[in-house]
């Protein structure tokens, strides 16, 4: 009777280090504004890949392109979702992208506030569940079995994120840090191949940030889920990420290990402002 988890949260079948996501020359225009301008970089399976940049650099726009909410005018976003299986995410509907194993959280929490934590997490299993109206409504037979089976995985996520004490509470009534954790949980319940986190630690105090960083590391270490995250706290980025891409005014100005990026002059200029040239 081991206490180890029985379910694997990683939905990807690629081996660690393999190419998983290719962002090729992506340009996104809103009228005359170029939100993204020829952005290109790769994400490897099993990495924690951080995207950083000043406000308005296009970080969230890029995440929205990957998850299908925005459609870039130029470029391709190629997802490798199995041995030899590739799909261009541009022009794929968000629902189909989710079924390919891309899960995400939002900068402003997007949970169902009137529902409990458990119900929100069960929703994360939705893509894996088959429903027949009558059977689900009456809760018998295969529907009941399915619900119980899915609940087991959800409970492991609850255990992993240490949210047992709020399991049956309404999400809207929870503290902000808990809501952020629930949102991460809902994404994990999808058993994602690729996890997109949009500022998972925004607005948190130091202790909450430490907790969240630990959860992200746990998810990555234990399950090997590839994580692409946007974050502003440079300390956190340098500590937990394997690779960093820097955006500035819609362009990718640097891409490399945290140490390389940290010593890059272009990055320093973007963050600290260029010295005035007299």
């Amino acid at each position, binding site marked *: *009777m*081991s*206490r*180890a*988890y029985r379910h694997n949260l990683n939905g990807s079948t690629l081996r660690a280090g393999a190419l998983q996501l290719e962002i090729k020359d992506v340009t996104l225009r809103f009228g005359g504004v170029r939100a993204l301008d020829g952005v290109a970089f790769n994400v490897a399976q099993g990495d924690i890949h951080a995207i950083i940049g000043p406000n308005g650099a296009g970080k969230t726009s890029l995440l929205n392109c990957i998850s299908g909410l925005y459609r870039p005018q130029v470029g391709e976003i190629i997802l490798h979702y199995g041995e030899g299986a590739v799909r261009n995410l541009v022009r794929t509907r968000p629902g189909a992208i989710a079924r390919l194993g891309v899960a995400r959280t939002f900068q402003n929490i997007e949970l169902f506030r009137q529902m409990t934590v458990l119900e929100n997490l069960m929703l994360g299993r939705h893509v894996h569940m088959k429903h027949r109206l009558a059977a689900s409504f009456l809760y018998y037979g295969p529907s009941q079995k399915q619900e119980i089976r899915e*609940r*087991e995985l959800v*409970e*492991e996520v*609850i*255990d*992993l994120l*240490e949210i*047992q*004490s709020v*399991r049956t509470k309404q999400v809207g009534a929870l503290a902000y840090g808990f809501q952020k954790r629930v949102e991460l949980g809902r994404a994990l319940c999808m058993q994602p191949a690729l996890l997109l986190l949009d500022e998972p630690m925004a607005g948190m105090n*130091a*202790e909450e940030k*430490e907790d969240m960083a630990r959860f992200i590391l*746990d998810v990555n*270490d*234990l399950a090997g889920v590839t994580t692409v995250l946007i974050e502003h706290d440079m300390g956190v980025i340098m500590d937990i990420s394997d690779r960093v891409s820097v955006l500035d005014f819609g362009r990718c100005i640097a891409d490399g290990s945290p140490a390389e990026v940290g010593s890059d002059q272009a990055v320093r200029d973007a963050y600290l402002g260029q010295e005035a040239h007299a």
Partner: protein
Amino acid sequence: MSRGLERRAATDPLPVDDATTLPKLLAELDRRFADTRIAVQEKRYGIWQPISWRDLHARVRDFAHGLASLGVRPGEVVAVLGDNRPEWLVAELAAQSLGACTVGIYPTSVGEEIVHVLTDGQVRVVVAEDQEQVDKIIDLKDRLPGIEKVIYYDTRGLELYEVPYLMEFTAVEATGREWGEAHQGWLDEQIAAGRGDDVAVICTTSGTTGRPKLAMLSHANLLEMGRSLNMVDPIGVESRYLSFLPLAWIGEQMIAVACGLQLGFTLSFAEEAGTQRADLRELGPNVMFSPPRIWEDMLSSIMVRVGEAGWLKRKAFAWGQAVGDRYAETRLKGEKAGLLLRLQHRVADWVALRPVRDQLGLTRIDRAYTGGAPLGPDVFRFFHSIGVNLKQIYGQTEICGIAVMHTDDDIKFATVGKPCPGTDIRIADNGEILLKSKAVFHGYYGNEAATAEAIDAEGWLHTGDAGYLDEHGHLVVIDRAKDVMEMPDGTRFSPAFIENKLKFSPYVDEAVVFWQDGSSDITAILTIDPATVGAWAEHRRLGYTTYTDLAGKAEVRELIAEEVARANEDLPESVRVRRFLLLHKQFDPDDDEITRTRKVRRRVINERYATIIEGLVEGAPEVQIKSVVTYQDGTTATRDITLQIVSMDGFTPKHPGARRSLFGSNA
């Protein structure tokens, strides 16, 4: 109060003789109940996960074989470091099967405390719960050369560790299974060779006076105590019991292990610390044993929630509680309540008291016990008024936790009851309480000098507590003998009594009083309860940032002064608190200021806050202190803090009787 007890016929405890040990009882329970009854259930993944007696027995045997294969010998000490989980019990019973014993370490312990227990106990094998506990041992390993194996059972985060002396619990069980097959009958011989006199567990004393000592308790000690508790209050096999206090504490060992294995009731473990209250309510236990802190916390939470409720609910509760109080008082006097009072009580119970019990998870409770430290009579009385049969237990780790207790319907709030069957009591000439029974411990591990001080040649246990027997044969415990204060007229008084009066306020978390013998100049250091005072401040739109900031607010001082004034009303003129001060921080076991069981360490307080105490005694208007703050990254900062001393001379409460409006006229 004892509704349902008749229905649930108490089963007789298993027969016990000189050769009975806990592992033998486990085997007997397996024979009796096999898969038909649940031995242990743990809430995990949102549901109660049961383990039958048969399965528990099998796991204990596997783990015992595993320990044997690791070279654990009879008489050795195996340490367990973690929260209450089935594995804790398995490890304990497995060690006992081999003739070894366990010492529990409080899961919140850090550094020096862990080193002390592991070194003094000459421990070689530690069973640690999870990454957090394993990390503690790894960090301390340089100072613990004797540790050979660390066995963990929650694998999360430990998968990638490459530490040679780590081993997973299930791996030990698996090796044990193989080892057992190669050594058929060996374990049965070991168990059969066990005697009641063998040491079963080592419990650390609370150590209010110094480093915790390791008290050795035998199987016979534990079983005798369980037997006498069951003679006073039969606990049936159907009883529900939630084990949420550390198993390192004698109180938890006493009910969960000693009574559990003698009676065969199901032991339940909470999911995690944050869900204890919810799990308690879900389970609805019949029996509960908790230190005063738990009861005080429950009372605070009721007071706060009643205070925040609408006027109708407040009125209903105030009325219901007053009726409940009258009803309880009549019954405890041994009188029969009149018809009108009975009717009133029926209604009060329905509209006000039962709902409150339900919120606390106490609807099914037949008997609740408090022990480990003195509980204020007001808290006591409150629980009786809402229909909880709360009883005091007096004992020490050295006598397995129970020596003196209240019997049903012979409860007096100021006493701790009468000696249990088989316990002799004597008051020494200097007023010290002496106890003698079969439950008196075997001595401190590796400390014969201390043992000789505790047990005299005739076998009397010297408790170090001062007390007397009242005219009804009830024991009244005054306080630790060296803490008893002498009033100007020469009578003796208990500082704990004053402290409990102060702590009865929901806003006061801890109180420590200071005095000089022969003087009535009494002062106190108080800490506030951040939850209740914080809620109070929010209601008054009083902004605050940290605990230090909140405790420094003039409004909060005013609030606490009123609470102190109210406590003073109940105290004799000569022992009223003259001055007090709100400390800038809470007492913390990590700072050694209180023990892991939350008893104040006076010696530490006296040393650390010497300047504050000096200021209080002199009657200065304020004191300056330097506070050193250690941040998480290890850097420290020193801040100067000024603490105001509040004098109660001439203080008149602005809102006299404020509590009465909350609580009804139960003064």
